[in-house]
């Protein structure tokens, strides 16, 4: 008996020790100790890159970029971590507090810029940009603006994401419309006709689940009504008046009238894109990735019917741009706790991945940040709607770059959601929103 138990225990311990050994061995490429190997100059250097699972540049595209980079610099290896958007912020936050960075390069969303700059999670890239980017003016100022805080460039623009207006031309034709709506009242009319004629049960779906996407849609809708700034020039919240209030009313009424799919209230962007691509709804307002999805056989049942268009705007407003969109730019940043000797390599990778040459290779994935690439004949060939893209990009509103943005956003999400669903009256929800945000500032 004793022997049997002894040996069982022995085997169990042996297995554990062995497995644990494997574990630490396998985990080494991302551990801090490996950095020092790289730093000594002989061994290979591993750059840990935190990236997001998304449509823009997918993980496959990133790996392709990494291969090219590794061919160019054989002593460097790029090790990716891909996380869902919802995980990105806390991963960066937790990594920042570690003694050595878990990630040497991180993908930074526009809305985090203020917080990262304020708390010093990532380092300013001004010296690198001044030294290595000969033509920074080729990236539109609206994009740079999203990543600059008090003159410090906190991230190198990588992804020019923004929203487009999508509609299903086949459904519109059935309803007797030859083009998409240009004004808000026209859009409302089209939706009412589509519903009345039973062409679709719900004409429109958007991503109104209680998440950042809802804030984007709210800002954009306010923009369509004339002004997408939720804060005035003095930095005071103004959701309870003007275009922002109109937008909230509009969203609520669409919900009450059954013009927007009620599923919108639990839908994130991919879910809303699915509803559009599967032919359940006629309109979708979403990020640029929908263009690819709706035109791909394996992900869409409406291939050939989806149209990219400028956003309808309220009459008498936005005359100059003829659209109103929302920015979702993403940049690449270097965390403050990336070891000194790795920072230049981290920058080399950033410079490489964001370069016009590389972006030109992946035009079908994403709208380039460089104007010259965006205006190139290849872009026009790959993306017949490139003029629309330009219009929408020029009409973007930015969400505020404030250091407590996430807390503010959480309040906006909660009350916008309740206002749309009608659990709180619109005006009351808007007033509450303003009150709570003001309380936050004190």
């Amino acid at each position, binding site marked *: *008996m*004793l022997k049997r*138990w*002894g040996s069982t*225990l022995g085997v*169990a311990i042996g*297995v*554990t020790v062995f*497995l*644990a050994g*494997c*574990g*630490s061995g*396998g*985990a080494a*490429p*991302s*551990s*801090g*100790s490996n950095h020092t190997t790289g730093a000594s100059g002989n061994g290979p250097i591993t750059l*840990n890159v935190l*990236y*997001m*699972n998304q*449509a823009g540049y*997918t*993980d496959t595209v*990133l*790996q392709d970029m*990494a291969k090219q980079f590794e061919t160019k610099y054989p002593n460097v*290896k*790029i*090790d*990716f*971590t*891909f*996380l*869902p*958007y*919802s*995980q990105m912020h*806390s*991963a960066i936050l*937790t990594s920042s*507090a*570690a*003694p*050595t960075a*878990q990630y040497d390069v991180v993908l930074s969303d526009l809305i985090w810029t203020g917080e990262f700059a304020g708390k010093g999670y990532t380092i300013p890239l001004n010296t690198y940009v001044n030294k290595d980017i000969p033509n920074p003016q080729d990236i539109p100022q609206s994009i740079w603006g999203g990543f600059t805080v008090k003159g410090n460039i906190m991230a190198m623009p990588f992804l020019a994401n923004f929203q487009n207006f999508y509609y299903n031309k086949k459904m519109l034709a059935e309803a007797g419309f030859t083009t998409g709506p240009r004004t808000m009242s026209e859009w409302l009319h089209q939706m009412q006709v589509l519903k009345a004629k039973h062409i679709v049960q719900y004409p429109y779906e958007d991503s109104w689940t209680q998440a950042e996407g809802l804030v984007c849609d709210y800002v954009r809708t306010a923009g369509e009504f004339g002004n997408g700034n939720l804060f005035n020039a003095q930095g005071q919240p103004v959701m309870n008046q003007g275009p922002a209030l109109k937008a909230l009313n509009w969203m609520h009424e669409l919900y009450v009238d059954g013009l927007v799919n009620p599923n919108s209230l639990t839908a994130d962007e*991919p879910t809303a894109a*699915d509803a559009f*691509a*599967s032919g*359940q709804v006629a309109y979708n307002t979403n990020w640029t*990735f929908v263009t690819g*999805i709706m035109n791909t056989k*394996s*992900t*869409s*049942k409406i291939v050939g019917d989806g149209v990219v268009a400028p956003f309808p705007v309220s009459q008498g407003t936005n005359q100059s741009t003829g659209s109103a969109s929302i920015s979702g730019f993403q940049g690449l940043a270097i965390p403050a706790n990336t070891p000194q000797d790795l920072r230049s390599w981290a920058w080399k990778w950033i410079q490489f991945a964001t370069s016009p040459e590389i972006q030109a290779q992946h035009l079908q994935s994403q709208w380039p940040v460089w104007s010259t690439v965006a205006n190139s004949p290849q872009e026009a060939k790959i993306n017949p709607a490139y003029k629309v893209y330009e219009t929408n990009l020029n009409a973007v509103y930015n969400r505020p770059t404030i250091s407590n943005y996430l807390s503010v956003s959480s309040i906006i999400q909660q009350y916008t959601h309740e206002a749309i669903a009608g659990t709180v009256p619109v005006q009351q929800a808007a007033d509450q929103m303003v009150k709570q945000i003001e309380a936050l500032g004190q």
Partner: protein
Amino acid sequence: MSSMAQGAGGKQRFRVRWTRLGMYLLLLLVAVWTLAPLYFLIITSLKQYVGTITFPLPWLPHPFTWKNYGMMFSGYQSGSTSYRFLHALRNSLITSTATTVLNLIFGSAAAYVLARSRIRGKNAISMAFLASNLLPTVALVVPFYVFTVTYFSSLGLYDTDTLLVILYTSFSLGLVIWIMRDYFNTIPIDLEEAARVDGASRLVSLVRILLPLTTPGLMATGLLTFLLSWDNFILPLILAPNASAYNLPFFIYSLSGQYLHMNNEIAAGGILAAIPPVLIIVFFGKYIISGLTAGSVKG
């Protein structure tokens, strides 16, 4: 007289038959409730993406593909789906096994003392362990995080399997001690003393006499610990989000963040992650049940 009795008997048989029919109908209902979601998960995992966004929804795997499973194993390169899946699988195996072994060693040793000794405050200690087991993970995750990244940051534990093993152990140890203590209590002390009279020391008698008798308990607690560790999500979410340490649940969650909600891929990953625990339940389920009930039935 006799005909009346017959009639009553017939009525009773009739009633019994109806009751049995009702019982089978209810059982069918339970079976459908249990199996329908699983059936849905399986067919989803065998569909191409469009098959998951078609209305009416195909109730058979249509259009059919094996690709969702294939991608978990082929195309291995840094960051790819198979890379993440296989790393997560390895991490889940390592952390769950190591936690189980540590828990059994520490837990049964402590349970033995708490069952057998007369050391002061042993009841209070037992209760403390039981209470610690009832404490939700969430209540402790904030200090764990802060400890890991500040005071103990020089140990480099953040984002490692080692950290997960330490924390899992702390969360399931109470359960192990609780169950094992009851097992030790059911074993007559005479048995042990007989061995000790033969000259065996306490440690030897523990190993030689008690452990074999508590094998069912060890099995139950070991398997429970394994299942609990296999299932953990919040600790990797906060303390090991990198591909080098994260586990299967976290991997499956991260699949959902992809640019489309590839429900077919999530389903395939989910089924693969569910296979080991399901096998454990099918083959060793009765140990777990007996382990969980042993204490209460006795009490």
